[in-house]
């Protein structure tokens, strides 16, 4: 067998700071030596399995666990009754609602947790599920959000005192309704569309799970759990279970993808913890794929009505009315003061005169959640809506969709720009980015090709989207989750040998934190990145912070690491001044070294300064020894990345199959710390966007049965559906981030579905009069639209 040279690549290819550094994580992964949840082996472990409801809505008449308990390998069976005695039958959600840990009174969605079996091995635990006898009385189910508030709709949350309907939250508004009415009255073109962003699912390749290991002697609870926010989880467990927070340690080792799915605390986690307390043994529980798709954090499910208007060829106003389907329990994730997340970024990249947004949330007999899937708090839904509406308006005006966008963009001179819903965008040059995308795509040539093909009866579509996101939650004065500020800590220690450990609260699920954050320290201190170890994912060994989601790692933790590095650098300057017998203000910094201004030969390397800091030599007046620092970083604003995307699709005129032939993505996320990792993030998000636009869907029949509960029916794109993505970039540094960087992880998932759907409609608008198709654009749904009767997805 042929072999090649071993890792690593020669040192001279490695940048000291920012650049295309190959990942520090990879050597273990390519050898199959990752350490994911199911790879962790603790002696004496017992295994959990969850019995779930076959009904979407039913009263529980009785639960008989006796046969399961009689199984020779079963150690325990936990039901709601057991949890009630511990006060744990219900848990708080991230949105100040409550969620049943195990159903006692009723089941409220298919797949809801009913009983938890613990056995000596996984096969026996699975077997014992069939031995539990639950008597249900089925009730009518609510599956259509538009009907949830009908007077005759069955009441789902009869557990909540005073709840008389299925309204999950009061209507939340942003913008100015009266001003919007005036703008619409003066408009010369108005379009109206009903647009659904259907329910889909992040479905990381590794499912969710936990090992809970409670030590009855010490009261210490060790939790092994791939989750995106370990510190926040620990605080939640302390509140939920009444356990002492300082006696809980959460360890996240490698995580097989998250995409928001691993943000929440799930009932299975609480059951495993209770199980460990009851049995005194480590309890491992990991859901199977069906459980993952049927019960854990879904995404989207926004039913939207909208109007957009234009005057004199420019977009002037927007109205949006949303019904948010939150499922049976409102566990949607958003900062406390934003009940609809950041949906009000729906005014997009355009200099509108006015806009008005209304969102109300309803309960339904569907799985709870509404957090996830590479989405910063509902920005994905907002961008999809506005970018569909702009295309609808362009069609109505008979103008090119890029021309309309160009005429309506916020100008580069307008930043910082306050939107009509109250955001302050930090920076941008939108037209420039749009032009780069047009150039890579060869936009004019594509339009010519389209016209020629149309003349031959072939269907080709070109779709554009231009998005602005607000990511990196967030500023303490505006944002908290469950009362916890959305700030991140960082702790940097430079050891006497000049090697460093940076501890962060953000938790990688594949984003490459071990590489990127080492690069930030390297850039700031001039230490080679391989000499910087990144510690994360262990609450005992990292500072507090809210975790990795919402594209917040680089904006918040990245800011923290830059600031803490600079604190160390500042301390090093004082020490260097003592070493060089000069004043600190006479020193200048070059990467890795303080030197005397005017005498560059006189200087001290950071490694020499580190030796000094820990030595017995003299230190500056009043300074403690050591070379370390810690910070809590409070970002002054969100960061506002943006991008211009162009999709080219071909549609089979007979079968209605859609193929994405090309996809051009030009992102501006400010300064790129590791452009290789940034590109990788974009590729992945684009593939997810292809999936959402064309095939990914969680749907239900009228009884509330989930129709997409395995990978046979929840379709994720393969290598054959994804085009060879074409990327470009512009760089507009973020004015308030210490590194000029903005978030990137979610941009491609946010920006790509509207581009693809716009392309599909672009292909069919002229020939078939199609004005809108709700996602996913499956062959059947596209064909129905071509016949003049588009169907909603549920």
């Amino acid at each position, binding site marked *: 067998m042929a072999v090649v040279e071993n890792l690593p690549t020669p040192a001279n290819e490695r940048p000291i700071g920012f650049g295309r550094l190959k990942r520090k994580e990879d050597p273990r992964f390519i050898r199959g030596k990752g350490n994911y949840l199911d790879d962790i082996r603790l002696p004496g472990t017992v295994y959990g399995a969850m019995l779930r409801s076959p009904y979407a809505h039913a009263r529980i008449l009785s639960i008989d666990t006796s046969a399961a308990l009689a199984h020779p390998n079963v150690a325990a069976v936990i039901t709601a009754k057991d949890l009630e005695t511990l006060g744990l039958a219900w848990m708080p959600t991230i949105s100040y609602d409550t969620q049943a840990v195990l159903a006692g009174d009723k089941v409220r969605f298919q797949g809801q947790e009913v009983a938890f079996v613990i056995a000596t091995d996984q096969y026996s635990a699975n077997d014992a599920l069939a031995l539990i006898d639950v008597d249900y009385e089925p009730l009518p189910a609510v599956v259509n959000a538009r009907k949830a508030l009908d007077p005759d709709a069955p009441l789902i949350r009869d557990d909540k005192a005073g709840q008389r309907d299925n309204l999950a939250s009061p209507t939340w508004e942003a913008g100015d309704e009266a001003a919007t009415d005036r703008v619409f009255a003066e408009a010369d073109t108005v379009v109206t569309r009903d647009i659904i962003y259907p329910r889909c699912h992040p479905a990381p390749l590794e499912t969710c799970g936990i090992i809970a290991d409670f030590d009855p002697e010490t009261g210490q609870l060790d939790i092994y759990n791939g989750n995106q926010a370990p510190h926040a989880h620990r605080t939640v467990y302390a509140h939920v279970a009444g356990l002492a927070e300082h006696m809980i340690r959460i360890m996240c080792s490698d995580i097989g993808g998250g995409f928001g799915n691993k943000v929440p605390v799930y009932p299975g986690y609480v059951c495993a913890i209770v199980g460990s307390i009851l049995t005194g043994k480590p309890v491992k529980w990991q859901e199977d794929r069906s459980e993952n798709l049927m019960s854990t954090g879904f995404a989207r499910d926004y039913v939207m009505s909208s109007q957009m208007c234009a005057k004199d060829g420019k977009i002037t106003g927007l109205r949006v009315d949303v019904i948010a389907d939150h499922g049976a329990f409102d566990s949607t994730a958003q900062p406390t003061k934003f009940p609809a997340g950041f949906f009000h970024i729906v005014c997009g990249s355009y200099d509108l005169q006015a806009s008005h947004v209304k969102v109300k949330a309803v309960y339904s007999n569907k799985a709870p959640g509404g957090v996830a899937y590479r989405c910063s708090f509902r920005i994905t839904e907002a961008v999809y809506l506005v970018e569909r509406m702009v295309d609808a308006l362009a069609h109505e005006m008979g103008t090119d969709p890029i021309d309309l966008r160009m005429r309506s963009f916020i100008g580069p001179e307008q930043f910082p720009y306050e939107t009509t819903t109250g955001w302050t965008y930090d920076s941008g040059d939108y037209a420039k980015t749009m032009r780069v995308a047009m150039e890579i795509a060869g936009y004019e040539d594509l339009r010519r090709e389209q016209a020629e093909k149309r003349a031959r009866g072939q269907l080709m579509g070109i779709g554009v989207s231009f998005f602005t996101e607000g990511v990196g939650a967030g500023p303490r004065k505006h944002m908290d989750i469950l009362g916890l500020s959305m700030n991140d800590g960082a702790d940097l220690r430079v050891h006497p040998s000049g090697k460093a450990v940076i501890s962060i609260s953000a938790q990688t699920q594949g984003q490459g934190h071990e590489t990127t954050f080492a690069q930030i320290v390297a850039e700031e201190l001039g230490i080679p990145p391989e000499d910087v170890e990144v510690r994360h994912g262990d609450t005992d060994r990292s500072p507090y912070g809210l975790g990795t989601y919402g594209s917040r790692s680089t904006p918040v933790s990245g800011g923290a690491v830059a600031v803490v590095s600079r604190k160390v650098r500042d301390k090093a300057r004082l020490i260097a001044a003592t070493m060089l017998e000069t004043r600190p203000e006479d020193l200048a910094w070059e990467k890795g070294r303080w030197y005397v201004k005017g005498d560059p030969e006189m200087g001290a390397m950071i490694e020499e300064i580190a030796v000094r800091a820990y030595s017995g030599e003299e230190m500056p007046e009043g300074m403690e020894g050591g070379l370390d620092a810690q910070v809590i970083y409070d970002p002054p604003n969100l960061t506002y990345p943006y991008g211009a995307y162009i999709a080219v699709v071909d549609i089979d005129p007979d079968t209605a199959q859609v193929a994405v032939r090309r996809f051009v993505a030009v992102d501006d996320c400010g300064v790129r710390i590791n452009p290789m990792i940034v590109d990788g993030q974009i590729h992945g998000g684009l593939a997810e966007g292809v999936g959402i636009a064309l095939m990914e869907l969680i749907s239900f029949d009228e009884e509330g049965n989930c129709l997409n509960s395995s990978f046979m029916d929840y379709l994720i794109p393969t290598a054959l*559906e994804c085009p060879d993505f074409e990327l470009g970039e512009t760089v507009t540094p973020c004015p308030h981030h210490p590194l000029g960087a903005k978030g990137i992880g979610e941009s491609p998932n946010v920006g790509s579905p509207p581009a693809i759907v716009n392309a599909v409609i672009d292909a069919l608008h002229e020939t078939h009069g199609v004005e809108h198709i709700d996602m996913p654009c499956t062959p059947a749904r596209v064909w129905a639209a071509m016949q003049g009767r588009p169907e909603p997805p549920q």
Partner: protein
Amino acid sequence: MQTPAPFEYERATSVEEAIAALRRVGPEARIIAGGHSLLPMMKLRLATPEHLIDINDLTELAYIREDDGEIRIGALTRHVDLERSELLARRFPLFADAEAVIADPVVRNRGTIGGSLCQADAAEDLSAVCSAVKAQVVIRGAEGERVVAMEDFHVGPYTTAVGAGEMLTEVRVPVRPGAGSAHEKVERRAGDWAIAAASAALWMDDGAIADAGVALGAVGMTTIHLARAEELLRGRAPSEELFAQAAAIASEDCSPRADGRGPVDYKRHLAGVLTHRALRRAAARTKGSG
């Protein structure tokens, strides 16, 4: 992860032994070969056989050869070998058409033709293929062999003519001159089951269609054998108009159900489109065919 319920397991060393085991254990026994239909069903606990008879050692059932004017395919022949067979590519290229779109290449390394046909899933591609080429299947029991035409093989959804104590051992396809064949499928995504599929075979004689085989997958409770279309095609010269008429019959004579893959009208429409395309390609392939 989901796991199967417990079962007894034995590995057959001969066809006779497998049949004896089937007879001994009775209806709770299932034969397993590739296992890519059965094991997922067992993990989901939709199938709970008490006894599995593994026939993977019966390599004497893995072959593709031409004998006595027939292509003979052993039941244990794997999809990958059907896909790559030069003999099939020459005689009946629709096998390769279908194999390229059955599940994915890794699954095709395990799944077998016998397993596919015996699963009797109406959306399964090889059933339509075998029906179109007018294959016969050999079913062996303790009493010996019997040969059943494809149109009699699938007696209902997930039900075949294989009786108690019997197993499928071989698929036979008669070789006749002037053949051309093609398989067409529309799926939601690579590797998915068909929304609709059509197989067509034509045998030309002196510029006219001497015989035709047309079958549809995924648009009925079982594979649909389009006898009326075949009758229409026989004796006529191939033409776009003729194929359009056959396609219209396909749309009429199928009986799809609405599901996550699409509504009834779309599936009827596809049955026609795919039948037309399969016939067109089959006709093109008759040129230069021996």
